């Protein structure tokens, strides 16, 4: 029996995450990558509703929230090496997500932070777009910092 350890009650997304998603959609095709809302309707949605309208992002969101809730997050994601926002109560995780039968090694790379019942998605990209780790790190740390400063 699964005992809920934590309930995630809030989902947020750094604005540039949606730019990342557009880049992914240029390289990969499939109805699971496309929102069922028109662009003008999509723009009016809150972060969680935006994710829920794209089947793959909805699955990723559910995966993260359920894994945190069930105490299984460390099986499916790793703590990021640098924990810049621990003093604010936020833990940074990196997660790999498979998009074909090559498995996670060639799939998506996702960076998110968690703080009690709140998850913030900061970055998502294909493995091929994550070659420069330093640039990647400074980019998502800047996004998270910007989110906290709003």
């Amino acid at each position, binding site marked *: 029996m699964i005992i809920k350890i934590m309930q995630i009650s809030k989902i947020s997304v750094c604005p540039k995450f949606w730019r990342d998603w557009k880049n992914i959609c240029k390289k990969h095709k*499939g109805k699971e990558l496309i929102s069922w809302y028109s662009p003008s309707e999509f723009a009016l949605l809150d972060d969680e509703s935006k994710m829920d309208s794209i089947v793959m992002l909805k*699955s990723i969101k*559910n*995966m993260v929230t*359920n894994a945190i809730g069930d105490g299984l997050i460390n099986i499916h994601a790793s703590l990021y090496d640098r924990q810049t926002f621990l003093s604010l109560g936020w833990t940074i995780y990196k997660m790999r997500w*498979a998009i074909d*039968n090559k498995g*996670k090694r060639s*799939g998506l790379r996702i960076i998110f932070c968690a703080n009690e019942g709140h998850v913030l998605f900061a970055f998502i990209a294909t493995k091929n777009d994550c070659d420069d780790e330093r640039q990647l790190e400074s980019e998502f740390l800047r996004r998270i910092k910007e989110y906290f400063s709003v």
Partner: protein
Amino acid sequence: MLTKSQQLLLYLMKLKGGVVDDKTKFAKYQYFTDFIHYAFYAKPVSEDIIYTRQKQGPLSRNLTDDLEELKRQGYIKESPTYKYTLAKDFNLRLSADEKRTARFVMSKYGQLSYADLIQVCHAQAPYLSSKDGGVIEYFTAFNLVDDYQDYADFKD
């Protein structure tokens, strides 16, 4: 004519020695076979089957209907305690790869208890990727490739 999902159920039962002693175990064997097969071949063994997230793990929406049809056609018998027994022989239309996936699943999970089977699928990406009662998307199975690195070398 039997559907692919009905044939898979019969084949899983045959691999289990002609008897499956629990409906939940049946549901899990079917889930593992369909999702592990999807992970490596981008298609499940069963056709036109939707899985949903239930308390006891992923469940094919057709499982009860499929078992009823197999009973109606005399292929299986069901005891009042949900124990299923093969009742007559059948012709199988599953491919060699599909049968191999089913054998892989039974070699890995055929001896696990009901509770252990539930624990395994509850911790996997497909189950975690859905909300209670929601559809489990097949593409989430690609995340299982890394969990079953022994699949490629499996020989029986």
